[in-house]
């Protein structure tokens, strides 16, 4: 499945659309950076991905017919660029996650040792140790699973929209999302997070 931004003549030269590009950039750069950071896990890689995304968008703007939402189009470009960039940098092998590996084998693996009682999620996430554990768990996910988790649970897109972006049907998106959640859950359950009340002293950002 591919999003609907097929080429259609007559196309305008990219150089004639600076205003159009500026508006596209201004309206979406924060969205794409947020997505890129969540995929890459560090600021420099995220900025590289944003630049690659908007460079490709600049070149493709003349062919964008508006059949998909602009944000969907940009998410798609960013996702493809991310896969290309990671392949180039790491040559990392993709491994499939099976459900069987997520079946707990001891009592301690069923629950999370995370101080969340009586806290809102935002307050709980002011615990630096918890934020780091969550980020590390997400970073360890094979990228095809991470993309599903980021699009669905962090960017808040529907399974259908995530499928359009990833070139998958909804069932496949849901399958990857489920495995990604189980993976992150297992990583968190293996960590004991201590109870820092950082939210009471102004909180942290990283």
């Amino acid at each position: 499945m591919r999003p609907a931004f097929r080429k259609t003549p007559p196309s305008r030269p990219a150089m004639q659309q600076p205003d159009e590009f500026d508006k596209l950039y201004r309206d979406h750069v924060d969205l794409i950076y947020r997505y890129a950071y969540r995929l890459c896990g560090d600021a420099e890689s995220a900025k590289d991905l944003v630049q690659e995304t908007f460079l490709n968008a600049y070149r493709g703007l003349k062919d964008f017919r508006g059949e998909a939402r602009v944000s969907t189009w940009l998410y798609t470009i960013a996702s493809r660029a991310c896969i290309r960039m990671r392949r180039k940098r790491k040559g990392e092998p993709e491994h499939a996650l099976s459900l069987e590996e997520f079946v707990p084998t001891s009592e301690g693996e069923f629950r999370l040792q995370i101080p969340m009682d009586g806290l809102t999620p935002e307050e709980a996430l002011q615990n630096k140790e918890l934020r780091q554990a969550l980020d590390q768990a997400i970073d360890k996910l094979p990228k095809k699973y991470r993309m599903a988790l980021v699009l669905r649970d962090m960017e808040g897109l529907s399974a259908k929209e995530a499928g359009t972006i990833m070139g998958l049907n909804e069932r496949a998106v849901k399958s990857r999302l489920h495995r990604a959640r189980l993976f992150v859950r297992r990583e968190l359950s293996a960590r004991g997070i201590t109870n820092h009340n950082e939210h009471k002293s102004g909180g942290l950002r990283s």
Partner: protein
Amino acid sequence: MTKKKTAVPKKRSRTFSQPHTHGQGHCADLLRQLSAYIDDELPSDICREIRRHLGTCPNCEVFIASLKQTVTLCRHRPAQQLTSSDRLNMRRAILDAAHAR
């Protein structure tokens, strides 16, 4: 594209409220459906079976609570922000690269 079975199995005949050992049988079946359950995507009869099972299986109840916590944390993880100079510098770099080729 995935070769493996997806999260929602076609079989709907099994019940979850029978005696079991964790890692086998019904609890393993339940594991496949937890995201669909959390996301409220399952038919009501399956949801009822799952709730009935959770009432008799503390381990599964704890497990599903931990999965919900995980999803909640992911949904609320604060996003990184760009500075205005980052935005300007990147825009310039993009246009330079576009005009250079």
